[in-house]
């Protein structure tokens, strides 16, 4: 047993702070921790210690703290959330939950949604939540409207409009898509209120998958949402929950499907299952990042390899990985590779992630072109004959089989990016204080607090929350 380091974690039974060690055994990484009252617990963190270490080598970010902490340090992390002054990371995305209600009764749901309408925050409360974002998050401000299922609220367009008027820079909507797919008028209102992108729950490309989690056939619904977003020029990110014995076998097909819908679909963001909230009690569905990457490599026939995924510019090297790829005539041209080392960037993590959320994941037309793309736009616009590939019609047949040249490559690249990413949320089993202290995804509560996402949704093994629904 080769010890990597000590970790501060929590007891899965009583949520008390306990110590543990992260160690290597048979090439795998585990966390083992012990509670005086409830015994010892072991959790698998990575199936491949080499990959685990590689992620650390490739991770290099500058950090910036939140604009204004909102609580004091008292009992120590994770019991002072709000954000407290010891939190090390600014917000890159603030999650604003506008309802607990949901029209799907999923077997798995970390939010443990219910159907009590009277619990929905009113407009004044939501206004205060937006104000919290403006107060705490450095500009530009990015929020995700989430739930529950936000589209159960008829006043969602007004909520979005209010956010816009209050100067929120980027607003994305987390949805299962059912109402958007059947209610065009409602979708039009959301679109004109100023939504930037849709974060669409998308667990697979076959109804078998949806039947298993929701008891409903939803694939056509998801496709219709994408069609409607295409017409409205609103970017879509597909968000599959991934678990073994569920949809792991469809990851390659999901990516393929997404690549055919570029540029409307800007990304696929996998969420490996984590055991908080309402979840099947067995842990067998759990999947580590490297297992998911291996499945993707296998199911894309090696077009997207494990090494094409570099650590996301997220809290820590182990919170997520990202691959940026071009899609050219159905072929993937991945632009990221761990062999290229850490992403070279002077930006701090939140700014960079925000740019990514706001730029790449938005609708194509609205994308703000940066220096590089405007520069290549210029080159194409000038269109001097020497820059374009020579017109093959004037040449002999030996040249006529050549596809697009480099100029076409640049033209293609402007609109054919796909970001494939995954985020490993923590549950009480895998919990490490270091990761949550650096968390950049924060949930805004109705009483004006900012709580790191994993802490907000954290439950003990009986499904009792540390923060959610606790006021």
């Amino acid at each position, binding site marked *: 047993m080769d010890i990597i380091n000590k970790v501060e974690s929590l007891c899965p039974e009583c949520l008390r702070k306990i110590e543990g060690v992260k160690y290597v055994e048979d090439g795998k990484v585990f966390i083992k921790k012990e509670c005086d009252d409830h015994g010892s617990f072991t959790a698998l963190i990575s199936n491949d210690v080499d990959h685990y270490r590689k992620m650390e080598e490739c991770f290099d970010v500058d950090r910036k703290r939140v604009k204004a902490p909102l609580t004091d340090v008292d009992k120590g992390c994770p019991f002072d959330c709000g954000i407290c002054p010891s939190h090390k990371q600014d917000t890159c995305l603030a999650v604003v939950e506008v309802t607990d209600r949901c029209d799907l009764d999923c077997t798995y749901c970390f939010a443990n949604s219910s159907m009590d309408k009277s619990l929905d925050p009113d407009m004044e409360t939501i206004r205060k939540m937006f104000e919290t974002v403006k107060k705490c998050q450095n500009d530009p401000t990015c929020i995700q409207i989430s739930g529950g299922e936000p589209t159960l609220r008829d006043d969602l367009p007004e909520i979005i409009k209010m956010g816009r008027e209050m100067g929120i820079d980027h607003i994305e909507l987390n949805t299962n898509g059912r109402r958007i797919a059947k209610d065009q008028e409602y979708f039009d209102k959301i679109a004109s209120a100023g939504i930037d992108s849709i974060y669409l729950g998308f667990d697979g490309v076959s109804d078998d998958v949806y039947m298993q989690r929701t008891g409903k056939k939803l694939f056509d619904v998801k496709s219709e949402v994408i069609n409607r977003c295409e017409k409205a020029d609103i970017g879509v990110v597909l968000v599959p929950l991934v678990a073994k014995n569920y949809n792991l076998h469809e990851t390659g097909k999901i990516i393929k499907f997404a690549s055919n819908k570029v540029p409307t679909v800007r990304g696929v963001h996998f969420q490996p299952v984590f055991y908080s909230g309402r979840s099947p009690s067995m842990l067998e569905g759990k999947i580590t990042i490297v297992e998911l990457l291996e499945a993707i490599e296998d199911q894309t026939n090696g077009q997207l390899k494990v090494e094409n995924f570099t650590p996301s510019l997220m809290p820590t090297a182990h919170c997520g990985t990202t691959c940026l790829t071009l899609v050219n005539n159905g072929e993937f041209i991945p632009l990221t590779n761990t062999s290229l080392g850490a992403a070279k960037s002077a930006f701090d993590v939140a700014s960079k992630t925000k740019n990514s959320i706001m730029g790449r994941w938005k609708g194509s037309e609205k994308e703000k072109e940066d220096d590089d793309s405007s520069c290549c736009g210029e080159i194409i616009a000038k269109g001097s004959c020497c820059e374009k590939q020579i017109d*093959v019609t*004037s040449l002999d047949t030996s040249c006529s*089989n050549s596809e697009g040249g480099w100029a076409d490559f640049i033209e293609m690249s402007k609109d054919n990016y796909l970001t494939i990413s995954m985020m490993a949320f923590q549950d009480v089993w895998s919990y490490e204080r270091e990761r949550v202290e650096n968390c950049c995804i924060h949930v805004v509560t109705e009483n004006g607090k900012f709580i790191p996402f994993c802490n907000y949704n954290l439950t003990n093994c009986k499904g009792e929350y540390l923060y959610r629904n606790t006021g």
Partner: protein
Amino acid sequence: MDINMTEEVQNLLKDEGFKKEEIQEIIEKAESNGKKLKHKSEDTFIAKDDSENLTTYAVYTISGEGINLNNVYSHKMHIDGLTGGELHEVENDDQSEWICQKCNETALERNVDMSYMGVTRAGPAIVCPKCQEFYVSDGVAKTLKTAESILEEKRA
């Protein structure tokens, strides 16, 4: 041999990170071994240097006062060879403006395959039909540079 250049070209060298000495070396080498392109009607030349990861080009004229450097550019892409593999004659070849000084042959504009970071695409180059030396124009080099940046993921 001394190299004259305008302030504009001096700034270009600085911006692109070239040293005057290395450009001088490229030109001197081309002048001594004749491996360069010469414009058909003007005293303008293109010399180049292929190092492992970078091809650098110097465009210059020769006058009574010596060598005047007009332009410098480079690309990281590797030129693999002619697209389609063989060079055949084409109707408009007599319009070519460049001569390979070493072979005294009219150099021709042809598509060549160029590779960078595992991606290969075609692009136009000026090719001597005899020694099959490839030269890339300033305009094409700009396009290649943009493509290189995209592949290096500089957008984010």
